[in-house]
């Protein structure tokens, strides 16, 4: 049996290595990608360019401009004369927000009857960035208000301060979270892409008949087809893990051996899904389309972007069937929270059950594909 399996594995590896562009891409692209993407998405939003129209030109308005500029998120880059000019800057994408300080602002704020208004105009087309710009501007102005009130000697001003305590990620940076789930996602993509072509390629090229007349059993065929993607997946994982540690210094609070074991389990599980795709499709192009849809389902339901608990109930249940969901939870658990075996057990068990189930289904569909 080992003999037969060895022959199949050798064939698979030779076929794979014969295509140097594919080898290069599949082995190096993930590490390069996580480096680039990590820099891009992990970077906290900083220096959003804003414009200020200062009609007041008072010490207080200058104080506000300085306060805005001093936030990490904002940088005051333009001083247009009026709103038309500001609109042109927004259209050209040069600034993402405009702060308008009206004439008579300072005297109004000192008077007891007036409540002058600062206007903040945001470019809503940039959604997420606009929301952060707004929060930063409000924060800067709010603290000025508090300061102004204190300076005015109004001791009756009392409020409720919310002090924030961010656990698992002290500085509340997007990076550790984004990079650990990026690691999971890229592993998912590569292994699915490579494994999903497994049987369907043989079928399209007509060589599957030859496989069917060999003495290889179905499970052996699956094991042989699974091994190349598994090796690629593990190499990619190690390279990317290296990048997360060396380049980004993502915390690694749990045990590496545990993470490695869980990754191997996940890779086996995901390979079974991909091989299922390759047994039910007829052409490689069909397989690619299915992989795309599968990847989108993975993105939607895995908690990669939106936490699973925020999905509708039905989708939460369906997400149990998505191996990526469990893997992302495991990676975050081990790397960021330092969770031990017991905390990880539900997701681990889920991966185990899914693997066995998929293996069963794939052997069934495989015999149909061969015949």
């Amino acid at each position, binding site marked *: 049996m080992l003999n037969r399996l060895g022959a199949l594995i050798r064939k698979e590896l030779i076929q794979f290595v014969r295509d140097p*562009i*594919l080898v290069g*891409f599949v082995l190096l692209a*993930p590490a390069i*990608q996580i480096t*680039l*993407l990590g820099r*891009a998405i992990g*970077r906290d939003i900083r220096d*959003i360019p804003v414009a200020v129209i200062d009609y007041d030109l008072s010490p207080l308005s200058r104080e506000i401009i300085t306060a805005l500029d001093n936030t990490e998120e904002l940088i005051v880059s333009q001083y247009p004369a009026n709103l038309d000019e500001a609109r042109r800057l927004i*259209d*050209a994408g040069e600034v993402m927000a405009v702060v308008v300080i009206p004439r008579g602002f300072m005297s109004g*704020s*000192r008077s007891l009857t007036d*409540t*002058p*208004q600062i206007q*903040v*105009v*945001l*470019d*809503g*087309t940039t*959604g997420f960035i*606009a*929301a952060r710009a*707004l*929060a930063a501007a409000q924060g800067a102005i709010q603290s000025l*208000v508090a300061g102004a009130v204190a300076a005015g000697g109004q001791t*009756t001003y*009392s*409020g*409720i*301060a*919310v*002090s*924030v305590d*961010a656990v*698992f990620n*002290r500085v*509340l940076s997007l990076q*550790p*979270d984004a990079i650990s789930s990026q690691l999971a996602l890229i592993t998912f*993509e590569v292994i699915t892409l*490579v494994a999903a072509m497994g049987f369907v390629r043989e079928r*399209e*090229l007509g060589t599957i008949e030859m496989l069917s007349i060999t003495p290889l059993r179905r499970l052996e065929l699956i094991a042989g087809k699974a091994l190349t993607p598994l090796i690629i997946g593990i190499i990619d994982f190690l390279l990317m893990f290296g990048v997360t540690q060396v380049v980004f210094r993502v915390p690694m609070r749990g045990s590496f051996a545990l993470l490695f074991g869980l990754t191997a389990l996940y890779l086996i599980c995901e390979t079974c899904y991909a091989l299922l795709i390759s047994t039910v499709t007829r052409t*490689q*192009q*069909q397989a*690619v389309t299915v*992989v795309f*849809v599968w990847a*989108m389902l993975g*993105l939607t339901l895995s908690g990669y*972007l939106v*936490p699973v608990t*925020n999905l509708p109930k039905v989708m939460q249940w369906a997400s149990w069937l998505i191996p990526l969901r469990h893997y992302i939870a495991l990676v*975050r658990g081990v790397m960021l929270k330092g969770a031990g075996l017991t*905390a990880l057990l539900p997701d681990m068990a889920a991966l185990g059950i899914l693997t066995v189930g998929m293996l069963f289904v794939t052997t069934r569909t495989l015999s149909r594909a061969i015949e």
Partner: protein
Amino acid sequence: MSRLRSLQRIAAIIVKEYKHIWFDPGFFFLAVLAPAVLLTLLSYVFSFDVEQFNLAILNQDQSPRSFEYIRELTASGDIRIIELVQNYDEVLALLREGRVDGALVIPPGFAGRLEARESASVNLVVDASDAGTAFQVINSIQQRTQAYAAGLTGMARAPFEVRIRVWFNPNLNSQHSMIPGLMALVLILPSLAIALGLTRERESGTFESLATTPITGSEYLIGKLIVYISMGVIGTLPALGVAAFWFRVPFRGSVLLYLLLTADYLLATMGFCLLVTRFIASQRTATSIVMLALFIPSFFLTGLILPVDKSSLISRAIAFALPATHFIVISRGIALKALSLSDLWYEALVLFGMGLSAVIVSIFLFTKKLN
């Protein structure tokens, strides 16, 4: 005369390709329908508005005031109180299990300080391993708390206030800004189709029969391009339909200009595909390259979600090289800001230049010779 012949041959290729796409449901789906399907899925994935989150409360004060405050927080239903806990250990356990997104600690003496018109404080512990959600939890608790504090009697009047106006997207709906941007991503699928189409002919050997015809390399490529670009433009319509009628994204500019610039964008991405398929021979490799070099980086390195890092030359160069960067500006500009060609000429020209040079180089490199 020979020019007429050449046009005839291009026409023959176009007819052949059209038949091919129309009668192969898989290809038709990938080139025409997949963008709309993918856009629907992605739009759900990339809506960052967290609608509901779970909170634990550690109320050490137990005063009527503190209960009133908690009621105020949960009044609108988007903050759900999962558990009332007794100590910090329970808070940490809940966070570790991921059952709550955050915990609010109301310290003893909370009500007393408020009665005495002093500043009270509460402590918000958030699970920052998902930083995106954490930000929204913090923002929402802070806003609610401020609103509650402002409603208490005996507060000083703030010296000035901030008024927010959001242009183009008044509710800062993340879908309205994401969906026009995502159009750039889903329109990569028709390019994947042309890459698969080109490599399939090599892989399955039908390319050999083409080699025996009088069709020249440039005629073959131009014919293919015309067909796939027009299919991509046709595929844009259902995708726009989904955006406008299902997700209710406003479309304020000219549809005709949009389609014209879509063709421009498709020329750039398909030109890239023509160029890389010159060097590869298998559909497996073609898919990997389109996925890993075009599709995934376009999510993170183009300004779709986060702004391009202007301080780093590498990320600026990559953003410039990815056609999606330019099309995202075009798509958001036309759909949300109603910009015209005079505002977008730079992006349009860059895409056209990229496409044209890639096509010229591919024609130059293209040989019908068989290896």
